[in-house]
């Protein structure tokens, strides 16, 4: 799969996204795509204690780093289209945070690429989550060892 003609679409933004519209955007008018895997990451609040998440990011680097990860995915798997959207700013429980849409002729490449992208986004994309609690102090979310391990399994 050398010289992939694919240019991943990467968007770092405050606004919400529409996963369905992004899938349509990727597949419209073409008949070579057999499989689309979409990952939506949402803001969780299991015990009704969270007022909001605040997502800080490194504006100059976030898009560049995610584009590097997306290009690496496009080199490792025969992807036909790839979209990554990551929000920043204030995000409420139940809202979208991140979207990956990976399209390929067959399902395994699409699954693997989407999973790879999420593992590397978690480990390498310059974003930091701060919790604002409904009552009491919130704080910065700690990095999970399991996320660093998840990224290592691809090397």
């Amino acid at each position, binding site marked *: 799969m050398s010289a992939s003609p694919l240019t991943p679409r990467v968007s770092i933004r405050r606004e919400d996204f529409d996963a369905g519209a992004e899938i349509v955007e990727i597949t419209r008018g073409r008949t070579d795509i057999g499989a689309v895997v979409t990952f939506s990451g949402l803001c969780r609040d299991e015990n009704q204690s969270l007022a909001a998440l605040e*997502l800080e990011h490194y504006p100059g680097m976030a898009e560049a780093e995610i584009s590097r990860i997306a290009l690496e995915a496009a080199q490792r798997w025969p992807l036909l289209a790839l979209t990554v959207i990551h929000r920043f700013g204030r995000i409420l429980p139940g809202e979208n945070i991140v979207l990956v849409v990976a399209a390929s002729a067959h399902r395994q490449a699409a699954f693997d690429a989407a999973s790879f992208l999420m593992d590397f*986004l*978690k480990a390498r994309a*310059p974003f930091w989550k*701060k919790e604002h609690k409904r009552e009491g102090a919130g704080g910065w979310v*700690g990095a999970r060892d399991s996320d660093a391990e998840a990224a290592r399994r691809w090397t």
Partner: protein
Amino acid sequence: MRLIYFAWVRERIGAAEEEVELPTAVQTVRDLLGWLQTRGETYAEALRHPEVIRVAIDREHVDHGERIGAAKEIALFPPMTGG
């Protein structure tokens, strides 16, 4: 050279960015972290565990052993929690 800070590194240092002149002895990222710790209590507090601090030079991740060279922008931040 511009230093920029994010998340709790930014909060503990008390600044989002600053311009600095590095002493010639500061050659690597590790040297930089050591030098910054001598600049005052907020820096010492923010960088007390330098091994957890992640660093990007000109918007690319680097290890602490990386040479600073002609870097224009060095960013210091905690492990990332995006996605």
